[in-house]
Structures are given as C-alpha cells and as structure tokens.
C-alpha cells in the first residue's frame, strides 16, 4: 500500500498531457490505475512521473455518430457495462466489460488503460480486435489511427510510443443481422481468461454469412484474428458442422505456450471449444436479429 515517490502531474487538456509525456519520458499515464498502481506497489514498475489524465475533460464520451460508435479512452468499464448506447449498438462490449475483474476495478478501470496495458488474456483487447475497431492516438504534432489488429505487438507491448496518448476507439457500425459471441474459459468469474474467443457474425436475408470475425485471446502474447476460419464461413449458411470445422481450423493454427495456468495442449483444445461456442452464439444471435426477435 505504499508507493515510491514520483513527480505527479495533473494536466487539464490533452495537449498538456502530451507535453508532459515529452518532459517525462520515463513517466506513465495514470488513468484507472487498476493495473499500474499494483505494479508500482509490487516494485514491478517504477515510473518517475505519473501523468494523471483523469482531470482531462472530453475523453469519456460515448457517441453513436451513425457511422459507428466512438468511445473515449477514459470511459470506465462500468460505463461500458451499463451505457444504453453501448448496450444497444454493441452489446458484446457491455458483455465483455461486465466480466472484467470485479465491481471496484470496473468503476475505475478504463477502456484506454486496458488497451494500452495489453494483457494477453484481457477481454477488451480481444473484443476490439474482433470488432475491427480503430484506435485513435494523439501525438504532440499529429494524430493517427491504428487498427486494433495492428496495435498489440507483444506481451504487454503496443504500438503506442511513450510520448503518445490513446484518446479513443472507433467501432464501425454493424449491419442489421449481426450477432456477437464471447466465450471464456476462466477458473473463477472475473479472473483473466485462460482462453477466450470473440466472434462477430452477420447474416443476410437468406441466412448466409456476409461477415465473420473471430479473435482469440490467451493463445499467444496478443489477441489473434483467424482469417482462415472466417473464410470458411463467409458466403455460406452456418451449420453446426461448418462452425465446428472452422473451430478445428483455429485449433490447428494456434501455437500457445505452457505456463503455470495451463499447458499448451489444453489451451489448443480449449481454443477450439471457445471458438466454436463464440461462433455458435454469434450465429444464433444473428439469426434472432434477422427474425426481429431478441
């Protein structure tokens, strides 16, 4: 419960925050603090400065601009879980946020913080990858956008430079007959997943799949998309056999490592099970939307 001294900055604008990141190259952004503060308390991180962005207005908006959802990086997990716009337009995000950690963590933890921290088994990086989201990054001289799929680069490593700030996320609008599925293997509710899969499926009027997106977490240092599995689904009706075959394709492609939580063989087997469950749920929900139910 005791941290080492650091320089503490409380910027009130994004520009100020960016300027401070330049002044303090060994500093870290403090958003929710639910990952950073424990690491500092344990001596695993010793930033000499914390740039607390909780006082920067405008970073926690949730908006549906017709083209998709825009969510500010400082949006708390609890908001993702409960916001009516998100629940209506992107319910998988609410579903994923609801199983992050515990209620206390969710009241402080932020979308941006989770994405920038990039834990391999975290829900939000996985879901953003499956959704084909775009991350908005601000640098002192410029802004840029990065596809979620290209943002996560290694164990706890992202494309974010030390002088950059993640300011928001854009999730493209989904078609009418779209369904989502999230399947996690956890030892206890709220724990980091051993393996997790997130699927997005869109069906046309003839119940043919027009879009399939499948991402898995916990099978490597970052969430991974599976275009080979996805291509087995697009343009076809989604029978149990096809979904199972796609899940098998996933199992052959993953190369997880063994660690104290699970062996590589088990992770591979569970990749298949979770992939299938996520795709089946997504397909079932998509079908329900088509018929106007659910």
């Amino acid at each position, binding site marked *: 419960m005791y941290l080492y001294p650091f320089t503490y900055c409380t910027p009130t604008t994004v520009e100020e925050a960016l300027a401070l990141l330049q002044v303090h190259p060994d500093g870290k952004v403090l958003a929710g603090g639910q990952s950073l503060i424990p690491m500092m308390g344990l001596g695993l991180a010793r930033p000499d400065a914390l740039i607390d962005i909780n006082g920067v207005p405008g970073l926690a908006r949730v908006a549906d601009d017709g083209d998709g959802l825009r969510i500010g990086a400082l949006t708390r997990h609890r908001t993702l879980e409960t916001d009516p716009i998100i629940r209506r337009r992107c319910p998988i995000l609410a579903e994923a946020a609801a199983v992050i950690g515990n209620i206390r963590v969710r009241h402080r933890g932020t979308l941006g913080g989770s994405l920038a921290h990039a834990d391999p088994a975290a829900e939000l990086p996985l879901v953003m990858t499956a959704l084909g989201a775009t991350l908005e990054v601000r640098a002192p001289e410029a802004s840029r956008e990065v596809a979620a799929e290209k943002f996560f680069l290694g164990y706890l490593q992202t494309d974010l430079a030390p002088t950059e700030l993640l300011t928001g996320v854009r999730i493209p609008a989904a078609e009418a007959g779209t369904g989502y599925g999230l399947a996690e293997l956890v030892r206890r509710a*709220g724990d980091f997943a051993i393996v997790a899969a997130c699927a997005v499926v869109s069906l046309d009027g003839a119940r043919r799949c027009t879009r399939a997106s499948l991402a898995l977490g916990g099978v490597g240092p970052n969430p991974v998309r599976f275009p080979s599995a996805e291509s087995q689904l697009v343009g076809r009706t989604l029978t149990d056999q096809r979904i199972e075959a796609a899940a098998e394709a996933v199992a052959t492609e993953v190369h997880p490592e063994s660690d104290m939580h699970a062996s590589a063989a088990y992770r591979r087997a569970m990749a298949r099970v979770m992939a299938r469950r996520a795709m089946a749920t997504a397909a079932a929900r998509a079908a329900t939307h088509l018929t106007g139910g659910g």
Partner: protein
Amino acid sequence: MHAPETEGRRPLAFSLNGHPVEVWASPHETLLAVLRDTLGATEVKYGCGEGVCGTCTILLDDAPVNACLLLALQAHGRSVTTVRGLRSAEGLHPLQRAFLEREAAQCGFCTPGMLLVAYAFLREHPAPTRAQIRTALAGNLCRCTGYTRIVDAVESCAAVPARSERDDP
C-alpha cells in the same frame, strides 16, 4: 508514522462520511494509506494491494472502489464513504443489523468492504435475486463464512429503501 517529507506534499480536502477533512498528502500516498495513517480510519483495511480482495473498499462519490489503488490526491474534492458512514442518527444501517443478527461476519475483516459493496448494490438493485447478490459480491473475498450468511443478510434487506439523505452537514 511518516517521516516529515515536506516536498511534494499538497493540501487534500474531501468529505469523509459526510464531514469535511483537510490534510496534507504526498502524491505517492495511496488513499488507503492516508485514510488509515493520517485520518485514523482504520476500518478501511489492507488485504492485498492488488485490488483483488475488497477489504479496502470505499465509496468514492457512491461508487465502490479500491482505496489501495487510488492516489490520495485523486480524492480531492470528492466524497469518500467508509463503513462508519453507513450508520445514521437512528443507529445501525439495516444491512449492519442484518449482518449482526445472521452472524454474516466471523473474523470481520472482509465485513466493512462487503457492507459497502452490498449497500451500493442495493441502491441500484433494490430487489435482487440471490444469484444477482452473489454476482454483486463476487469481488469481495471472505475466508470464514462461506458467503451464505452474507447473501442471506443482503437478501433480507432487499426492498428496504435506500438510506435517506444524511441529517449531518
């Protein structure tokens, strides 16, 4: 207990259980440390420092959060409620009374945090099912009771109106 580290100390003012407090705090002091060591609010516990156990739960403007993962200075201008803030002029909060009558506390170390999370939960969900109560409490660990009595106590308080506005300033 602290050596006088005057550099970096800033004024910190917030409301603690309805009363205004003003102290000096360094940026690296967590809210948990300031509550316990500076303000004597030892009812807020240290259990893990990871945000996992729930013994440091406080309400920050009505939201349950981990005091061990907040910098004290982040509470500036906010309201902080500990378990001592549940009691009213009339006496124990119904949740506290229910915990006492049903022996929903054995060693009691998880109890302050558990009560606050339950309190915040019932404010949002006045008539929950037992399953919903278990989900709400899943982030607060208990090693003594096995949870059933705690769920019983919370359930017995369901549909009790949320605590009315305080009668103190």
